[in-house]
């Protein structure tokens, strides 16, 4: 069985894989990083979004072998080592941006990718960017609000609905 090695959340990681091993399976099953969720397994829901070399990808639709040598960041890599939440995570907590929490890892990783490219997005740009992230609790309103707040914009006039 071939071996793959990559950097995950700043630390070297390696393991045995099959050709068909998906990146999400390698992260969850080989590295026990179960924060990345497998929702639909058809690249529609976005619960499995991680960053590969700084870009958001759906880890259920990429083979682990293709991440050889890559820098991968998962939801576990977002908070500070002392547990201080990443500003996007803190904003999700402050603005009730999650209900059941299943979609949250993907939402946070997509939001982080958006804010990297577009530090102060409009509400429409946030909603557009989250096209590939599905929340079954239908919590989009507060998710969008949390992301706008994390970008440093005033959300006090956006009503909680």
């Amino acid at each position, binding site marked *: 069985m*071939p071996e793959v090695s990559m950097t995950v959340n700043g630390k070297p990681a390696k393991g045995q894989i099959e050709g068909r091993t998906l990146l999400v399976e390698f992260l969850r099953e080989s590295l026990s990083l179960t924060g990345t969720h497998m929702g639909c397994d058809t*690249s529609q829901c976005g619960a499995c979004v991680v960053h590969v070399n700084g*870009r958001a990808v759906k880890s259920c639709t990429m*083979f682990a072998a*293709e991440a050889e040598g890559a820098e991968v960041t998962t939801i576990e890599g977002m908070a500070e080592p002392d547990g201080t939440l990443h500003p996007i995570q803190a904003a999700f907590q402050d603005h009730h941006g999650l209900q059941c929490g299943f979609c949250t890892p993907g939402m946070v990783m997509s939001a982080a990718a958006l804010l990297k490219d577009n530090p102060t997005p409009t509400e429409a740009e946030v909603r557009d960017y989250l*096209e590939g992230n599905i929340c079954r609790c239908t919590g989009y309103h507060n998710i969008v609000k949390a992301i706008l707040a994390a970008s440093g914009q005033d959300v006090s006039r956006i009503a909680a609905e």
Partner: protein
Amino acid sequence: MYAFEIDRPATLADALKALGAEEAQALGGGQTLIPALKARLASPARLVALSGVAEIKGIRTGENGALCIGGGTCHADVAAGAGAYPALAALAARIGDPAVRNRGTIGGSLANNDPSACYPAAVLGSGAVVVTTNRQIAADDFFEGMFTTTLEDSEIITEVRFPVPEVASYQKFEQPASRFALVGVFVAKYAGGVRVAVTGASEEGVFRWSEAEAALSGDFSPGAIEGLRLSGAGMISDLHGSGDYRAHLVAVMTRRAVAAAR
């Protein structure tokens, strides 16, 4: 998924060598092929991932100002880097969702030739040239019907060369669940005439609407094709829309594309 071996060559030469193996198949960004493998619609013995082949990625300006896009370039990079051809950049920016656009490639999309994919409309509508490891193929000769192209088994798309038009626009009527085109129309106006390519509609895959091209080449305005329509026969008919509905949409989206062209 059935089990398979996976290769990740770093050069085109090694990729071609790997593709020479029994039952080997090229893997672009995987945004179509991986779901197909999961559904067991494909069962190659070996996949040759092209994502590590740097020489087929990137955007450059070619002869006569043509915009040349490497076959392994992802949609997000085309959206960001094809500013010289705004309609093409805009098309790339509306494929799938952001994470899909970071993986899916132009070469993969063209080789697959999904009847509802966006890129085939841009390639046919621009009269682009598809460059492979063996030859150069004119857009009019490349597409052979639903999920079928003239590509041979061990041929890799290395570059797509787009002549830049005076004005152009792609108008997509999105199927909201899949974000594929229910109908998409690409209109491009060149000094030598107008090209109109339609995706999502025909059971034969992407096609040129020659009556609209003739009318628009004389008078490039939405009014020039008012009343012009296609038959619903031979159009895709499914739960999202009948053939007649798609035929109607083609005319509507063509007029919108002409109005929006810049």
